[in-house]
């Protein structure tokens, strides 16, 4: 009988151990987050609200010395606050003491954080009601809008060709992106990669790289590639391609993560290997979302291609930039109308296609 009890004890111990480790991790996370919260509040209140708004200083004094001091103070406060288990982060990670003190500190501090963030944001954005209603400004806007409604039809042919170029740039970027995106998406899907350590490391590294690439706007990529391969449509196409791969790989891999697990379970229960499971249970479920994302991305790329043209990526954007530089507002008006029309058509077509395939 004693032996039986011992065996039954083991699972209880496993549960308790797991809980203990989890709590430790959560406390560590809470301490870091609290330090950040305190640091953030002090910096925002001192620099944005006190120095910039109340004292109205135009150039703020900056010294690492001061930042470091604030940081030390926040480490001190944050650590103690988290250890007392009454802080906001403790509440967020579910390890706070359940009493009145916690409730009050959490509520007041959350409100405080939200308010100082909003006030600092207002100050930083330099919101000014006056400049919206200044007569000079309104006059300028009138001139632009007026030109848009009297477009210069003389450059219609040229801008039509430039527009077609833009659509093709977007199309080629989208098409070429498909194979690399497909391959990448399987390696960045958590549910396929979490099973062993090596594949999880690959998943993690790829995710970081993709996040980095995606966080750089196509506009910046276009600048980089126009230096690399020379100004023109090719640079614009590569810029779109790079960004499309990075963002669609994320969308695709999320589609893979969101599939029904049942069929996957069923296929792996027949003794199929990993490749077979992916091919016969995962792929049939994601073909349509993939197609839909890709078509939608073409639509997005047409819009982005016009912007990329502004920095020398070719197509209608480049043309727009030239006329804008010459202050020829009626020509600019025609180009803007054309872009709006094409984007609207593309939007409609891609929505219809996506509806049809579902």
């Amino acid at each position, binding site marked *: 009988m004693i032996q039986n009890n011992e*065996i*039954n004890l*083991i*699972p209880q111990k*496993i*549960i308790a151990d*797991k*809980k203990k480790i989890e709590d430790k991790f959560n406390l560590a996370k809470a301490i870091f987050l609290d330090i950040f919260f305190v640091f953030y509040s002090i910096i925002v209140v001192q620099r944005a609200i006190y120095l910039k708004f109340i004292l109205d200083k135009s150039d703020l004094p900056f010294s690492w010395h001061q930042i470091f001091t604030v940081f030390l103070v926040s480490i001190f406060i944050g650590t103690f606050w988290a250890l007392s288990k009454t802080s906001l982060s403790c509440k967020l990670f579910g390890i706070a003491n359940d009493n009145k003190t916690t409730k009050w500190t959490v509520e007041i501090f959350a409100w405080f954080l939200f308010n100082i963030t909003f006030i600092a944001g207002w100050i930083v954005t330099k919101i000014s009601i006056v400049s919206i209603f200044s007569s000079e400004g309104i006059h300028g806007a009138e001139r632009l809008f007026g030109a848009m409604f009297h477009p210069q039809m003389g450059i219609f042919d040229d801008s039509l060709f430039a527009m077609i170029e833009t659509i093709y740039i977007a199309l080629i970027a989208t098409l070429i992106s498909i194979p690399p995106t497909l391959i990448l998406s399987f390696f960045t899907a958590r549910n396929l990669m979490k099973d062993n350590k090596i594949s999880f490391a690959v998943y993690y590294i790829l995710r970081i790289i993709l996040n980095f690439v995606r966080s750089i706007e196509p506009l910046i990529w276009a600048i980089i590639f126009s230096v690399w391969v020379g100004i023109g449509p090719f640079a614009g196409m590569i810029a779109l391609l790079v960004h499309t791969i990075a963002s669609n790989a994320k969308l695709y891999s999320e589609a893979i993560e969101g599939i*029904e697990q*049942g*069929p996957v*379970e*069923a*296929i*792996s*229960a*027949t*003794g*199929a*290997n990993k*490749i*077979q499971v992916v*091919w*016969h*249970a995962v792929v*049939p*479920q994601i*073909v349509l979302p993939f197609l839909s994302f890709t078509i939608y991305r073409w639509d997005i790329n047409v819009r982005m291609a016009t912007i990329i043209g502004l920095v020398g990526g070719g197509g209608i954007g480049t043309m727009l930039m030239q006329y804008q530089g010459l202050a020829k507002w009626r020509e600019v008006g025609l180009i803007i109308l054309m872009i709006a029309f094409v984007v609207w058509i593309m939007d409609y077509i891609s929505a219809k296609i996506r509806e049809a395939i579902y």
Partner: protein
Amino acid sequence: MMLLEIKNLHKIYDNGTHALKGISLHVNEGEFLVVIGLSGSGKSTLLRCINRLIEPTSGSIKFFDKEITHVKGEELRKLKSQIGMVFQQFNLIKRRSVLSNVINGKLGKLSTFDTLIERYSDEVYKEAYSCLDIVGISDKAKIRADSLSGGQQQRVAIARSLMQNPKLLLADEPVASLDPATSNSIMQYFEKVNKEFGTTVICNLHFLSLVRRYATRVIALKAGEIIYEGLPSAIDESWFKTIYGEEAEEVEIR
């Protein structure tokens, strides 16, 4: 002959749920064993531990006297290919034909490359059709799986598991999302497989009337422990209340 022997099996999920608390049982070849119990009592976990869709935390499982509790890789796939499984939600590949869904049951025994380009020998097709014949649905072979009714989909799922020539057939609440009449006919197919091919069946069920009719032996789980083991006819009112709680009332299904 002893097909399956489970000793002191525990399963603790990562979230701390203690789903199985020391299950011990043995299953002989040719049995039709039914597992009953409330939702959350550990029935599904038990089945999934047997074909190792989930990893048991401790304890041991022997399949044909071979320790399978922690087998890995090729050996694990070979084990899985000998055990068929039928699910509550059918788990067919919706956009594929009935036939290719059935052939999916054979994946573990065919070469990976052949299955990727879907090049199957005539024998495989023949086998698939004969499996569909057993469940009486071979006329629907070319139709997309999701255009079938629930009962028909479950029959396809049975055909898929038969394609494995399983030594053991696991069924996780196979009739829980079907109407009473269809439930009965699905259970008859399980009975047919059990009687005609001698395949051992372990099935999770909710309806006692179905249990009494089809089971050769019953175990009842409650909160991860076996609280009853015996013949289906021996489950009387008081046992029923112990298993399902005081307020439970038996629902008839014919």
